[in-house]
């Protein structure tokens, strides 16, 4: 118990660090994921190929390797002077975007083709079909996997701690170096993560309930 109170500032910093990393990369991943899903379902072959390559490559690369790329290749060839925080968000966001892309894509494909055909034969434009027929139904199927994806993202953000970012893994390392009992540190850190992951799954359950419709 003392451990938490003695190092409360560090724990708070770490907790907020994890939270902010997760939130920022989740936003980036959502945008990138939706764009990539758009690419993958588009009728334009080069964009489809790009989306497929993006997903296949990033998904089969260990996240730690992506971090190495973000920190030691990207600054050299593209953006010198980027802060470690932004680089970490970039790596986490790109990695997570592949999972979001796949979730969105499968969400779109759950909408029966007949419905879209019916919409078109009623004279709806592309955007009308998308807004009124496809998206409302796709969103409902995309929400549950998104929850798991964001929980996974929260956990993956720990790797950023090894790359000059202040977050919970960093706190655990700091306290271990100071020689405190590993078991206690582990439990407190675990609790902090549980708070975040439970909050995410609660939030999404709420979303799910709000979107529910009787069929």
């Amino acid at each position, binding site marked *: 118990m003392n451990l938490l109170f003695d190092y409360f500032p560090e724990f708070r910093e770490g907790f907020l660090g994890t939270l902010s990393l997760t939130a920022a990369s989740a936003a980036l991943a959502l945008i990138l994921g939706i764009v990539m899903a758009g690419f993958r379902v588009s009728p334009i072959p080069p964009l489809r190929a790009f989306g497929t390559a993006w997903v296949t490559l990033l998904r089969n690369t260990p996240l730690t390797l992506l971090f190495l790329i973000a*920190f*030691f290749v990207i*600054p*050299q060839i593209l953006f*010198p*002077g*980027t802060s*470690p925080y932004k680089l970490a968000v970039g790596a986490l966001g790109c990695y997570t975007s592949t999972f979001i892309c796949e979730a969105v894509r499968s969400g779109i494909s759950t909408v029966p083709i007949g419905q879209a055909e019916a919409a078109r034969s009623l004279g709806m434009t592309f955007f009308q079909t998308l807004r009124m027929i496809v998206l409302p139904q796709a969103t409902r199927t995309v929400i549950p996997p998104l929850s798991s994806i964001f929980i996974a993202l929260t956990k993956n953000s720990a790797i950023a701690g*090894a*790359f*000059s970012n202040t977050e919970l893994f960093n706190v655990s*390392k700091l306290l*271990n*170096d100071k*020689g405190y009992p590993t078991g206690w540190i582990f439990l407190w850190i675990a609790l902090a993560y549980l708070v975040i992951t439970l909050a995410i799954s609660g939030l999404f359950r709420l979303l799910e309930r709000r979107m529910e419709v009787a069929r």
Partner: protein
Amino acid sequence: MSIRKTAAAASVVLALAATAACGGKEGNAGDKPKGGEVISGKYTVAKDVKLDSPTLKAAQKRGKLIIGAKADQPYLGFEDTTGKRSGFDIEIAKMVAADLGFSEDQIEFKTVDSNVRETSISKGQVDYYVGTYTINDERKKQVGFAGPYYVAGADLLVRKDEKDITGPESVKGKKVCSIVGSTPLQEIKKSKYGAKTTELGKYSLCVKQLLDGQVDAVTTDDAILKGYAAQRPSKLKVVGKPFTKEPYGIGMNKGDKALRDAITDALEKHIKNGDYKKAYEGTLGKSGSAYVAPETPLPRY
């Protein structure tokens, strides 16, 4: 689709296995060392060493001494691509090992990065540790120290064309990289200097960031920095205004007093008989640090 994928994947693995199987060029990859080759000395190995030290007894039983060292610090503790270790710290480690009765073949060097040093030493992953390890009170709580065998000072490594950074007082608002938990980093973070810091696990990662323009300076002990500058004289330079004192010691298990005394004896012996000076000039001296004789007798506690 998937069959094609598998074939592609398999061919890559096969190609790699094939290239690996057929040997390749001998020697060290990359540029030739700029300051000339670093020496590797031989030391007389003591026989039948008897010491009331649990660490040493365990090492004698396994017939091997495990020494922690750095692997990415040119002229200090470095491992090239052929797996050969060289540098001043490695020479010191070998001298001490010889006095403890272990020849060069009986030493197993283990790379221990700075961010896991305390863990590694206090928990006995290595028998002792020689790797630019500053003696301070905080660390004395967790590990035992013999030495100092060398006194360095924190300095700044910058790009050759850098004009703004002339010393520690001019880093305000600049980005400075060092490794997690290092002493110069904690110093430069103070409001007196006011630098923004990046913390990574290894100095070579910091140097890479400096070369890429990710950070404006790397701070750590001058001995380490001079090694990097000597590797790339056309791109990097050391500012040359040390702002701390960093006495280097050999780290080991805190409770093992017998081992600590034996290592202190060994260091004193080699400083007296000239091995130390020879090792210094053959390694660290080549990166441009002048030789300063260490003060003897070494402190004991």
